[in-house]
């Protein structure tokens, strides 16, 4: 998984927070920033991300791509 990272399309995010809970290295934080639909979205810290895919697996809204 060397170099693999999670990329988030926060326009799809509903701020449910499940990925924040699932991330094993606390690389995802909930922000107060709103997307077009008015949801408070998450943010990924690429430096911390280990590309494990937990966020992709738990996200019900297809926000993540891990590559």
């Amino acid at each position: 998984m060397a170099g693999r990272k999670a990329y988030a399309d926060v326009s799809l995010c509903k701020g449910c927070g499940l990925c924040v809970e699932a991330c094993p290295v606390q690389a995802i934080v909930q922000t107060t920033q709103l997307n077009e639909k008015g949801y408070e979205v998450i943010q990924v810290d690429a430096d911390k991300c280990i590309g494990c895919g937990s966020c992709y697996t738990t996200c019900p809204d297809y926000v993540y791509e891990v590559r």
Partner: protein
Amino acid sequence: MIQTLRKPDRIVQPCGFCGGCGHGVIQRLIAECLEELGISDRAINCVDIACCFWTLDGMDLDGIAGPHGRLPAVATGIKKTRPDDIVYIHAGDGASYTIGIAETVHICLRDVPVTMIVVNNGVFGMTGGQMSLGTTLLGQATTSTPRGRNESSNGSPGDFLQALSQFDFEFAARGALYSVKEINRTKQLIKKGFQNQMEKKGFSLIEVLSACPTNWHLSPVAANKRVEEVVAAQFPLRVYKDRGGMSDG
């Protein structure tokens, strides 16, 4: 080669469900299984009226929305007409275990080679969170049992998957979505259900314990915790029957 994780191509719309709802994960697991098994071109999506309905347009597949609770019958008509297509049902617990229990029982008895995924979140989600007679837990507050489900007036919920598994059909198992591990395990159960159909085996029933944060009035994280600690204690996660001999591991 490093594996990329990306939404399957057959999902063509942003998810229409409430934030934190398990339906979106289930839709993705279904699409992933179809893609990985190479059967997307043969798949027909049979959705029940209620929240599942969002997947009718969400999935780039031919689909059908049947009368509430009748999807096992609808899918039977389709599968008998097109036996080489992969016919699956995406339905809720209210449809499958309450209004449509006769249809669910009889697709088990007929052992029609269809894959049925029952999303059990213990409430009627689409109509506003009323009691689901088969699955709402005792004491659980819903919009039709605001002081909690009371055994004397509403009876008790039941483990329908366990009860149905006494019949002679292919595969019955229960999964959940409260952790990465359980989501991955649930995906294997759904995949098994599709493989059975590819191999012209019988009926596969996969129940998935799912959270309804909106109607449970819990945060998505707390709702998932409730599934893990409370709901799964009532409805155990395991393989209930497997004629093909899938282990419970």
